[in-house]
């Protein structure tokens, strides 16, 4: 075979090899979800960014955003004008199928997360999971989704256009439970982990948590507290204790 023919064959083979390798690492479902996300917050990436968006779409080994999260989400309350406001200082408790329990505390944006590194003694959660926020328990199981917003999808123009049943304020519709909402009277003292800020000004109040560290000095609530031990509830960990 002449050198020019070899060179030509290699040129033809290169796109095939590249396409094959790309196919091994590219997940079109996640890629499309990431592409559709709104632009980054003006303040930039932090523990407070992208409230209500699917955290683990990016914070995983696929997209590589740090830290790698085991679960993540945002807790909201609804203002009288129906707009949403992140709820700070409430514990979110994850119960896995193997009996492990993990707690996280919502920060000023209402965001909470448990990193893979926070999981102590286990490599990962055993799905399905159940979730408690304040005094409320999620009525369905979590089968495999790590981002709360994977199912608790907020309203957007595309969804409203496709599905007339979508609640324009919360996003609840035929294929989404909408925003995770909690009212302040559903957060007993034992489920508070920092100063509660009631956007309606009608209740809430004092901090009960001791040592729930603020993530970046915005006041209400630390980034994450988590503890995972089989059949044990704990609230210690990286961010401070209960």
């Amino acid at each position, binding site marked *: 075979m002449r050198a020019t023919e070899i060179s030509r064959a290699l040129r033809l083979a290169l796109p095939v090899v590249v396409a094959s390798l790309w196919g091994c690492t590219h997940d079109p479902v996640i890629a499309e979800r990431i592409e559709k996300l709104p632009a980054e917050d003006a303040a930039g990436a932090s523990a407070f960014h992208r409230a209500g968006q699917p955290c683990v779409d990016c914070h995983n080994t696929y997209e590589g955003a740090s830290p790698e999260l085991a679960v993540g989400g945002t807790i909201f309350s609804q203002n009288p004008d129906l707009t949403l406001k992140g709820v700070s200082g409430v514990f979110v408790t994850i*119960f896995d199928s193997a009996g492990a329990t993990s707690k996280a505390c919502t920060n000023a944006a209402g965001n909470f997360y448990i990193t893979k590194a926070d999981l102590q003694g286990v490599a990962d959660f055993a*799905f*399905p999971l*159940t979730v408690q926020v304040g005094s409320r328990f999620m*009525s*369905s*199981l*979590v*089968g*495999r*989704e790590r981002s709360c917003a*994977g*199912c608790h999808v907020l309203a957007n123009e595309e969804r409203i256009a496709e599905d*007339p*049943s979508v*609640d324009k304020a919360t996003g*609840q*519709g*035929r*294929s*989404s*439970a*909408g925003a995770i909402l909690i009212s302040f009277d559903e957060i007993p003292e034992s489920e508070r982990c920092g100063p509660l800020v009631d956007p309606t000004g009608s209740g809430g109040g004092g901090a009960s948590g001791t040592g729930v560290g603020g993530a970046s000095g915005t006041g209400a609530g630390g980034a994450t507290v988590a503890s995972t031990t089989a059949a044990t509830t704990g609230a210690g960990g990286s961010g401070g204790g209960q």
Partner: protein
Amino acid sequence: MSGTSKFVKVASPLVLLVLGVASSGCQDGLTETRTFACPPRAPFEAHVSELMERRCGTLDCHGSDFRPLRIYGEDGLRSPRENNRTAGAPTTATERADNYFSLCAVEPEQMEKVVSNPGGSAVNTLLLVRKARGQEGHKGGKVFNPFDDADRCVVGWLRGDTEKSVAEACQAALAKLP
């Protein structure tokens, strides 16, 4: 050989192939319907559907428009024919009926074999059962253990157990869910 005859020699098989493929799309019978047997509907809707809804029909699993074996339910995906929302009104009769047809349609021929030989072993070959038992690749992992309550609920219904025993197994399985 002239340029034209060369072209004819090369192009003829291709033209024949295209015509063959095109004409196969015109064959009769492709719109015919056939009815397959499926285990009884009443016990499914009364007992089995609720377990499927709670254990399999979450929005991140089979409660999705984009996955096979679509399951509707009050805490999951809602029927597009009704205006209910997730975590809203209880599961409707329409949704339970759709769940029934969804299960029956996974492998209709295999399902008919199960129905034609109640109590036989064909039930163990169903994709539905093999996936739930973790014997076949399943993104949701192993959901039932053979002969546990959930397995006896679904498999018992499939193989024609009495409605009483199906109901008891389903209730026991539901009671164990968190």
